[in-house]
């Protein structure tokens, strides 16, 4: 009876007075999976990369668990090797590279320059499908079969000696490259041709500059990796011999091609983080950014010089000594623009009206970790020191400070900062601060001991180690536990806020920029009418705070 009544009279949906946003513009699964709205694609990416981050983090947790004991009795060698490969491959290609560009970039880039959408919306959706196809396939390969070469796929291990599923893993990496290329092409064209009237190059937010530099790297470097991987595939499948010295090839050539991509791609991971930083620092110091043009140009300089330094990964792998010297020198050069940025942010914070909200805590943590990661990078770029610490945990700690310290903190800082814009809800500030604090402590506890371990001579990728290293390894693993807990906090309270958080105003931070002039969440076409930009970026009042 009651069932019949309900069927006869469906309750009317309350739509009156509800502003149309990109979130309620069609609510079927279909309207999400076939969307060409850059904001929805950004959200699709957010959900997907969060999933892959969790997978990669679980692998990292298992690695740290295995390293608690020196004799390697927790996991077998084989499983350990497959775990660190899974961790590396998933984290690099399926989390770090797409993290900020494809989530925050997709969501914000068109809004920040005053456009209705990216230049090629359908290509943007295709890029997500390619990403998902490659990611699901790669995950299957890495879990069902496993690969034991590490994410670098160095020859001749990957071509001759490994008995694991190298060929399908390589195919997955090739395919995900196309997703990066499409995103890069899309962003470059968008920045060039889709800017609103009055949005000149030097009125663009610095985040857009960094996304532009990132896209240039993606477009120029990814094809080289694709081809290197295709050659690796041919080599393993047909034995063409291009990386086999016995057949006249050269295994070092693989490393040249691989690092021609993979070093610049480090900047793909960190440049977007720098872009997010410029936004956070100005908003929470409530001050104009110091040296706008310097920060903008240094993004471009990093993108360009980043291509000249790949050889510092290969100093002791058989390249000539002259080549090593020139790569070492060029590597020092790339530190200059990075340092310029850090100084500029410090000068921006100086005498600002600082508000220590969650995004600002992440930004402060970012600067600390990036400086440590950057300085140790200079150690590694010096030939003499690298002779001592190459292929040790020193390197592992160094690049985790950059990739996890800098990129993940910037990603989370950016997610918090723009969360009200993306979802229209505020997150609980207290828990935000707690998690930022835990993350900073947990991160340092995990990776700082690894600098010491590496300097003392513990090689990377080994499953067993001398017993005198056990204390530092346990410390590192304990830190990883804290870090894991700190990751779970935001996952929980951000999801909680979607349902229970209070509604966000259009501009909760009193920040500048086009994205804060539109409602939260934004309407389907971003702007009611095309905005005309007649203001400078970051036009904060520059008041001197009272004592």
């Amino acid at each position: 009876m009651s069932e019949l009544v309900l069927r006869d009279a469906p309750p009317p949906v309350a739509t009156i007075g509800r502003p149309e946003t990109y979130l309620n513009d069609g609510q079927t699964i279909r309207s999400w999976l076939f969307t060409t709205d850059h904001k929805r694609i950004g959200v699709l990416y957010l959900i997907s990369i969060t999933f892959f981050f969790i997978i990669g983090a679980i692998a990292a947790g298992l690695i740290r668990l295995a390293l608690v004991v020196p004799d390697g009795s927790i996991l077998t060698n084989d499983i350990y090797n497959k775990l660190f490969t899974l961790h590396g491959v998933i984290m690099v290609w399926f989390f770090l590279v797409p993290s900020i560009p494809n989530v925050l970039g997709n969501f914000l880039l068109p809004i920040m320059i005053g456009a209705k959408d990216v230049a090629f919306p359908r290509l943007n959706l295709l890029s997500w499908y390619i990403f998902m196809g490659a990611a699901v396939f790669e995950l299957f390969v890495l879990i069902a079969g496993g690969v034991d070469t590490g994410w670098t796929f160095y020859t001749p291990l990957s071509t001759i000696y490994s008995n694991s599923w190298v060929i399908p893993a390589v195919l997955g990496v090739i395919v995900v490259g196309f997703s990066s290329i499409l995103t890069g092409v899309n962003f470059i064209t968008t920045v060039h041709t889709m800017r609103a009237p009055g949005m000149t190059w030097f009125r663009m937010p610095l985040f857009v500059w960094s996304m532009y530099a990132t896209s240039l790297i993606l477009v120029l470097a990814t094809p080289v990796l694709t081809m290197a991987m295709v050659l690796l595939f041919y080599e393993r499948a047909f034995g063409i011999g291009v990386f086999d010295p016995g057949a006249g090839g050269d295994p070092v050539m693989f490393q040249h091609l691989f690092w021609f991509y993979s070093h610049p791609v480090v900047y793909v991971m960190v440049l977007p983080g720098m872009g997010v930083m410029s936004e956070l620092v100005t908003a929470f110091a409530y001050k104009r950014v110091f040296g706008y043009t310097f920060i903008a140009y240094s993004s471009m300089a990093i993108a360009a010089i980043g291509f000249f330094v790949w050889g510092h990964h290969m100093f002791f792998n058989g390249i000539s000594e002259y080549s090593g010297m020139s790569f070492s020198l060029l590597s020092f050069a790339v530190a200059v623009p990075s340092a310029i940025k850090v100084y500029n942010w410090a000068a921006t914070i100086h005498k600002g009206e600082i508000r220590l909200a969650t995004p600002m805590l992440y930004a402060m943590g970012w600067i600390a970790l990036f400086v440590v990661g950057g300085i140790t990078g200079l150690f590694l770029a010096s030939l003499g020191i690298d002779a001592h610490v190459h292929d040790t945990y020193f390197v592992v700690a160094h690049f985790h400070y950059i990739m996890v310290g800098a990129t993940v903190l910037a990603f989370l800082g950016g997610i918090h900062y723009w969360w009200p814009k993306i979802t229209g809800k505020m997150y609980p500030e207290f828990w935000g601060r707690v998690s930022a604090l835990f993350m900073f402590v947990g991160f340092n506890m995990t990776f700082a001991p690894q600098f010491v371990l590496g300097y003392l001579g513990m090689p990377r990728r080994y499953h067993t180690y001398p017993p005198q290293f056990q204390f530092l390894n346990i410390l590192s693993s304990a830190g990883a536990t804290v870090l894991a807990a700190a990751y779970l906090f935001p996952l929980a309270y951000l999801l909680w806020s979607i349902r229970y958080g209070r509604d966000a105003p259009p501009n909760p931070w009193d920040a500048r920029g086009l994205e804060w002039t539109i409602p939260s969440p934004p309407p389907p076409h971003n702007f009611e009418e095309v905005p005309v930009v007649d203001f400078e970026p970051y036009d904060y009042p520059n008041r001197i705070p009272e004592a």
Partner: protein
Amino acid sequence: MPDGVGIELAEQFSSARQQKETGELGMWVFLLTELMLFSTLFVSALILRMLHPGAVTAAALHLKMWIGGLNTAVLITSSFFMSLAIELSRAGRTSPMRLCMVVTAGLGVLFLCLKGYEYYRDYAEHMTPFFAWRPYGLLGDPASRLFVDLYYVITSLHAVHLTIGIGLVMTMQHLARAPGFLSRHANRIAITGLYWHFIDLIWIIVYPTLYVLNR
């Protein structure tokens, strides 16, 4: 622009000029990635040549230079017809434009046939080192096998691109059948042409790199 030639504005753009520039820039940036893709193979070929000059020269003399040269001429001619098609599209003359595009694609097919014949001749000469079951015909240094393998990698990748190009040109001329196509999508012909010329460009680099410079 003459009558009957124009661009239908897509949702995200605010002017036809913006849309045209976006399409062209997008294609150029994509071609940039293609250039890097092939350059990786060219750098491999150069490294091989530096490490093993003798073996590479000996193997390169077995490549059929006359087919390679003829194929270059075929592609240059196809590019001529593509350029003509672009000029015609700008004048709004659909029928001769479509004819030129069919000739372009036809010359592309001719290229593939000649390439296939060349592969057949190579096969007959036992120049297929990647087939484990078939003995390799050229004697000497193992690097000779590697050079021949690289020749197959480079030329087959180019052939794949050319096949995509043929498909693209044929699709475009098929779509152009619809009345008023040029008044809505005039820019698409020029963008397709960019891709075609680029494939031609790559072959213009492949021909000397593999066939001529190594002799």
